[in-house]
């Protein structure tokens, strides 16, 4: 939809830095907010350049260098997927579940970790709650691991980050496997459903993928002898695929995000610590 000349005039009256921000944000409200964050977080000399970059759809989180996740402010740079609010939402749910069930000594594996958002949130909050645990996180991208390690240092975490290919990972024992793998099929990646800033600036290898990742994740769960898993996804077919692959001892269900979209598939074969209690629908 085109932005009306009236809105552009209105924006110009507020600040000359505002009209360029209408292009990526599409609304005066969000543009005003983004400008206030740019002004708050960057020195005055960098404002103009920041606005010009943003006008060309560079993600705001690459310009400002961070993205909030829980109570953390994670470092985000080109080459790593920016954590999404949907991920934050389910990660907090998993966290609350682990704390309320006092999942002592739980061993967690996070695959396709990116910035390390999921394991770092779990680690810092479980530590605060006094629940002993171990977390390992892997990503195929050396750049992602580099940034994850920066974040790990920033929050002095005890997460072990390792550059590893999920498809050739050597099995180790874990209790819970979490992952936000690339789940946009190529055909949809090229459609207008994917925001310009995402397609132009975020790493393809963190975005494009489909059933092959879920097949491998289920294998990994089996190889690691885990009894709980949660994977983020975008399509019902991906959830059905997981349900089809696991053996009958597993309970499998799906979880929606608060915008009402299908967001996760959860599986469990542990009667005491059953993560599928978070599900909206059991399959």
């Amino acid at each position, binding site marked *: 939809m085109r932005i009306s000349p009236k809105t552009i005039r209105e924006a110009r009256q507020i600040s000359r830095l505002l009209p360029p921000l209408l292009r990526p944000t599409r609304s005066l409200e969000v543009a005003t907010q983004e400008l206030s964050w740019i002004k708050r977080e960057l020195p005055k000399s960098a404002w103009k350049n920041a606005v010009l970059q943003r006008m060309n759809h560079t993600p705001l989180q690459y310009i400002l260098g961070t993205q909030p996740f*829980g109570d953390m402010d994670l470092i985000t740079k080109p080459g790593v997927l920016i954590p999404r609010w949907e991920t934050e939402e389910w990660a907090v749910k998993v966290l609350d579940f682990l704390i309320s069930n006092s999942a002592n000594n739980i061993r967690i594996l996070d695959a396709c970790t990116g910035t390390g958002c999921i394991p770092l949130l779990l680690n810092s909050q479980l530590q605060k709650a006094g629940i002993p645990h171990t977390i390992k996180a892997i990503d195929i991208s050396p750049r992602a691991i580099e940034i994850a390690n920066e974040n790990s240092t920033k929050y002095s975490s005890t997460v072990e980050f390792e550059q590893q290919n999920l498809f050739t990972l050597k099995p180790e024992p874990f209790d819970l496997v979490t992952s936000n793998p690339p789940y946009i099929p190529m055909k949809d990646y090229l459609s207008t459903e994917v925001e310009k800033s995402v397609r132009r600036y975020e790493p393809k290898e963190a975005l494009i993928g489909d059933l092959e990742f879920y097949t491998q994740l289920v294998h990994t769960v089996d190889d690691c002898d885990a009894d709980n898993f949660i994977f983020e996804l*975008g399509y019902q077919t991906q959830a059905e695929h997981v349900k089809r692959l696991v053996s009958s001892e597993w309970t499998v269900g799906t979880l929606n995000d608060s915008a009402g979209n299908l967001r996760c598939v959860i599986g469990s074969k542990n009667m005491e610590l059953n993560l599928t209690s978070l599900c909206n629908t059991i399959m």
Partner: protein
Amino acid sequence: MMGIRTSGLCRYLLRPQVPCREYVIPKKTKLPPRPKWLIKEEDIEESFIKGGSGPGGQKINKTNSKVQLKHIPTGIVVTSQHSRSQEQNRQKAREILAEKLDLMENGPKSRVAVVTERKVKLKQSKQKKSHRKYRKIEEGRAKEKEFEELVNIEDEIDQMTGRG
């Protein structure tokens, strides 16, 4: 009717006898505490307004996170979108809601009311001080003028009576 009148009269007679009561500025260190205890999570309906419908997830990169709270018993709705952090917006929204509930429950004794009162009074006292200063200057000038006039009149009288 009588009852109400009497009680009104009683209140009038028993009114605090401090003459300049309304000019006492509340001390900054003695403000009522932030009314956090008024927030009961079970009374709140929390929603995250993401603006527009769509696939979300990896396909969209939202920068804002607006939090809306509805207080079920009173129907008060508040929102917060000041920060990029949803966590901070959730806290801020709770603070705003707590202030509103406090104002409803405690009226002029609530923290918001006392804080606003303090602000208004500080401003008033500042104005008063400046008024006082200028009034003094004016008065000084007026007195001088009066004195001059008096001297002039005395001179005139002296001339008229042929003395001097």
